[in-house]
């Protein structure tokens, strides 16, 4: 039986990798993939806690997170297509219309 702390550490490392990717990449699709990594890290923590507490509520929460991720991927990729159509670029730095 692997201790729950190991899972939480793995989850934390994956979350930090997602944050790092979000900050250093300029390609809007890779930024979006970094968000997926962060969501998955959170899911892993939920699953580990669900097993530790012997409660299925954590797994229900992961189910809901996955649904939100699917909705987010659909809308987000539509926005990316729209962004590319308007700017002819997939660089997040070009999305500066509302920048002060």
């Amino acid at each position, binding site marked *: 039986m692997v201790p729950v702390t190991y*899972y939480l550490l793995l989850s934390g490392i994956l979350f930090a990798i997602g944050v790092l990717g979000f900050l250093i*990449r300029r390609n809007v*699709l890779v930024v979006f993939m970094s968000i997926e*990594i962060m969501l998955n890290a959170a899911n892993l923590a939920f699953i580990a806690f*669900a097993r530790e507490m012997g409660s*299925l509520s954590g797994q229900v929460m992961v189910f809901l997170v996955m649904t939100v*991720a699917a909705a987010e991927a659909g809308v987000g*990729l539509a926005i990316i297509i*729209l962004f590319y159509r308007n700017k002819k*670029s997939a660089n997040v730095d070009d999305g500066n219309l509302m920048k002060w």
Partner: protein
Amino acid sequence: MELAFFIILALVAIASALMVILQKNPVYSALSLIVTLGSIAVLFILQKAFFLAFIQIIVYAGAIMILFIFVIMLLNLRKDEFGPEKRKLQRFFAVVFSLLLIVELFVVVRNTLFGKAGESMQVAEDFGTASSLGQLLFSTYLFPFEITSILLLIAMIGALFLARREE
């Protein structure tokens, strides 16, 4: 035995997650992300979340990643490559703060007590199967489940509205 399995899977997940953010070509990033999602799905099985492991493979590694690849192909992004952030200072601070985040989470996890140490909760025989999860989902969590369907409907309408061409 389980610990060795966990360590191998954790290393695969971390290595492929790093590949996602370090690859220049977004297609390779997407393929690395599939490896990450697959190894996390196996970790779900180790934690007795059998149903969610398969949902992870089907929804994430299947549907969402196909959508990603589809958009990458549609935008034909292989030509214009800009790679990681050019500005050195922002990159430096990004790495520093990510490492700080890992250290912070490590400290938090270390200083937290999780029940009785080394003694994990006994779980039912059907823990994490489709039937036990479904029973909970359609009784206690019925309302959030129904809200989810509205969310998916809104996402569908929103995606259609956004991606249609202006006449």
